[in-house]
């Protein structure tokens, strides 16, 4: 291959993709922020608009709720995902295939279908309540749907595969002779896990938690369908201010805020992760 014009050729090959991204992704985003914040409104009013939106009561409540839910979801996916990834990294054959099947099928199923399936389970007359009442454990149906609990369950379900795949990649890269050496030198299993295995998976834990948290703070479908009237996350607030109140400046400032936080976290993710590992690719 002609190495001399290698980078020019590479540029040419990538041009169509970037052109499409520029047209359908970047241009709308830039145009949206510039138009609403700098052209339709006077640029001098921008600082005041930003301060009033960011410190407004709905935004503060939504920010707290978003962070709280995202932290809970990140923690649950980590607690559930770590043992699954560990199991996958240490098994092969039929058992490996079966667990992979259970992780991959939900991963590629439409988010709306996955959310619907949990609504069917958790509803007032849902499957879980039917079974609990049928077995005589409870008399009145439990309020399982339309609250923060439901949001965390639904989002954990949707985001768990990202955590499992990231952790699995990290665990697969561990040299098994290291833990064997630890055991041979007389360390007990817990000590080996705590001092050798877990530290070696730490970058996976960090990448997995970051990607789940990044995706959580922008989540819309699941909280919108499974949350109660008072469980409003930032992405929902943005959608509402456009669909219901038609308040474009407020929606734009909130979007800018959410976008900047997301990009800042993605920058950290970018530093700690081999980007190709994203989605276990």
């Amino acid at each position: 291959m002609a190495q001399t014009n290698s980078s020019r050729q590479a540029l040419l090959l990538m041009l169509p993709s970037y052109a499409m991204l520029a047209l359908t992704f970047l241009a709308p985003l830039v145009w949206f922020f510039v138009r609403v914040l700098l052209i339709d409104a006077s640029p001098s009013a921008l600082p005041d608009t930003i301060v009033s939106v960011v410190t407004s009561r709905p935004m503060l409540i939504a920010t707290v709720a978003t962070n709280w839910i995202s932290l809970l979801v990140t923690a649950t996916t980590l607690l559930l995902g770590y043992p699954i990834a560990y199991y996958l990294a240490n098994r092969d054959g039929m058992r490996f295939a079966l667990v992979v099947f259970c992780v991959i099928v939900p991963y590629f199923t439409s988010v709306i279908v996955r959310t619907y399936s949990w609504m069917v389970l958790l509803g007032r007359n849902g499957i879980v309540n039917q079974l609990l009442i049928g077995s005589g454990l409870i008399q009145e149906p439990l309020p399982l749907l339309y609250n923060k609990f439901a949001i965390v369950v639904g989002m954990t379900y949707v985001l768990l595969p990202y955590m499992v795949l990231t952790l699995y990649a990290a665990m697969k890269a561990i040299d098994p002779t290291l833990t064997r050496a630890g055991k041979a030198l007389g360390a007990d299993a817990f000590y080996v896990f705590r001092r050798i295995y877990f530290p070696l998976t730490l970058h996976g834990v960090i990448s997995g938690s970051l990607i789940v948290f990044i995706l959580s703070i922008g989540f819309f479908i699941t909280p919108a369908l499974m949350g109660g009237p008072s469980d409003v996350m930032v992405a929902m607030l943005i959608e509402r201010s456009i669909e219901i109140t038609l308040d474009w400046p407020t929606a734009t400032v909130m979007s800018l805020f959410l976008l900047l936080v997301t990009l800042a976290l993605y920058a950290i993710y970018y530093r700690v992760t081999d980007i190709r590992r994203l989605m276990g690719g």
Partner: protein
Amino acid sequence: MERATERILPLFVTAICLVLILPIAIVIVLAFSGQTFLKFPPDSYSLRWFAAFFGNARWQASLWSSVVIAVIACVIATSLGFFAAYAFVRHDFAGKKFLLSLMLLPIIVPTVITAIAMYFLSAKFGLVGNVLWIGACHAALALPVVLLILLSTLQGVDVNLERAALSCGSSWPRMMLRVVVPLAAPGIVSSALFAFLASFDELIVSLFLTNAATQTLPVRIWNSLHLEVEPTIAAVSAFLIAVTAAVLLLDRVLRGRRAAKA
């Protein structure tokens, strides 16, 4: 401790796996229910909800529009993404990791923001409801998927075969068409399948960019879920799950072929 772990771990993993797969399994069972309300297990089974889905002109219109948009997105994302993936695998240039991370942005930026921005621009140019444009917008979201699959596929293509073709006098386009594309074919097909799926299942962008005439299946499910949890939705969901299963199965078969070739 080790023995305890060995005993508890399989139990724990089995429990989680059941929780992962049961919701989907239950939706499939409910789709075949013979009753008008969702009871599990159903007292009777029937195909009436599938009949309600396939027999309804509006659901059919949504299915058609989902397929058309997904095919457009799949063709755009796969063809453009192929060349970009080739550049990333075969060429060395400054800022490679950064350029790659830019291409993954569509899955990182909250889709609500992307969708609102796309709507804002589309409304200005009268593109709301235009399937070609919605397909192009979906292609941006499908591009990261295509890229990640093709990066690993193209790494498996022996560069010496390409060098041999070129030194034997083949032109670059001919070498691509006769050497790289056939060798990478299974990966190209599976990236196309997942690009199709990414668009076919996409909700948020479709929610903002479609109109009454071009509503996709996920949008119709979304609209119905705000009203009530009716069993037709279970049938439509089961249909979407079947499409996912078909894509995963085809990908399995293709992977087997790829492994056999290597």
